[in-house]
């Protein structure tokens, strides 16, 4: 901003000396222009600072609230677990149903708080990604193994294929894990009836590309442009299932883009979706 003011001052001086003979008037004009620019610059800088401060306070607020919510949520989740374990005495079958409802809902709140904390971290300056070398196919295999019980319970089959001798990628393994978990969870969760999820990893120029295809409910065309927005949930998903925080894809996009990669998808309602991301090779 300072450079612009200096340049404009010099420029107005040069133009002024060319058209106005009296040097004192030129100096006065240059002084007035510089003063106006300085005032404008101060106003703009102040509003930017205020905006940044408001944003920082919002993220801090979310972070504090989320942390404060975590303590009672842990108490709640563990108390329910203790009751359901039967350690304190046998529970009736009808009661089990209600304990399950309590547990499901406490898990949902826990997920929401977890995602909100990640979002607040992403939106503050505190979000930093580690740079390490790792194998994307090894990480994917690990995650698929962990998801097997969930996939089985959801009547979904996971097919995994990858090119031979894939190079390692460069990024934050823990954060990329969250992205794959999000995408895989969505692929399984939003599939009606018998599901089939296909995961492919291949090399594309200077990137390794991860692709996940499902035969799920798909994303309606009019919703597609909002899919990576915070808290957005597709209209058909809202009708079909109520779970999900609407933050997973927003978080995934932020992680991939800050890792120097790209993320995208193609989808057709009622047919399925294919999400992909690519990350740079070291």
């Amino acid at each position, binding site marked *: 901003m300072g450079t612009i003011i200096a340049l404009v001052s010099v420029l107005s001086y040069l133009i002024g000396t060319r058209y106005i003979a009296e040097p004192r008037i030129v100096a006065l004009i240059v002084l007035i222009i510089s003063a106006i620019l300085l005032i404008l610059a101060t106003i703009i800088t102040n509003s930017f600072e205020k905006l940044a401060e408001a944003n920082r306070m919002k993220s801090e607020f979310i972070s504090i609230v989320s*942390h404060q919510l*975590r*303590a009672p*949520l*842990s*108490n709640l*989740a*563990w*108390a329910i*677990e*203790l009751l359901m*374990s039967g*350690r*304190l005495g046998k529970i009736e079958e009808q009661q089990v149903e209600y304990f399950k409802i309590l547990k499901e809902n406490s898990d949902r709140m*826990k997920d929401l*708080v*977890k995602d909100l904390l990640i979002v607040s971290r992403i939106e503050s300056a505190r979000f930093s990604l580690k740079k390490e070398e790792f194998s994307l196919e090894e990480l994917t295999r690990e995650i698929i193994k962990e998801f097997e019980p969930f996939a089985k319970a959801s009547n979904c089959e996971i097919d995994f294929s990858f090119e031979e001798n894939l190079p390692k990628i460069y990024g934050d393994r823990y954060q990329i894990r969250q992205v794959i978990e999000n995408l895989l969870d969505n692929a399984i969760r939003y599939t009606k009836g018998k599901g089939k999820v296909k995961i492919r990893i291949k090399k594309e120029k200077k990137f390794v590309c991860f692709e996940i295809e499902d035969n799920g409910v798909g994303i309606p065309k009019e919703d597609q442009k909002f899919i990576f927005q915070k808290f957005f949930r597709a209209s058909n998903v809202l009708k079909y299932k109520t779970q999900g925080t609407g933050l997973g894809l927003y978080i995934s996009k932020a992680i991939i883009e800050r890792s120097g990669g790209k993320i995208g998808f193609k989808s057709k309602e009622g047919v399925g979706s294919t999400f992909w991301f690519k990350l740079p090779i070291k």
Partner: protein
Amino acid sequence: MKKILFIEDEAALQKTFRDILEKEGYQMISALDGESGLRLAKSQKPDLILLDLILPRKDGFEVLKELKEDEATKGIPVIVLTNLEDIESVERAIELGATTYLVKAQYTLEEVIQKVKKALEK
């Protein structure tokens, strides 16, 4: 009977752990703040300490530091049980001498109990 000192300001969690661990045959001692936790650690010499990090009067990091500085308590294994999951807190607690670091939201109650039992077997 092995003694466990639980330094945690959430009374609900104190009760949950007491109900389970006493049934498992352990003696439970509770402290609701850092200062009394440290005092009980010195006077009662527990076999294991379960320590929260955000505590009134004296926070968990300070408690851990003082426990490890005192000859009488430095040998007691400490399991940190907290909701702080940032890497700085984990590294700081391990550096100060915590045996295990558990983030509450990431574990089921059963998993925590198993870790407590395992730590006491050693």
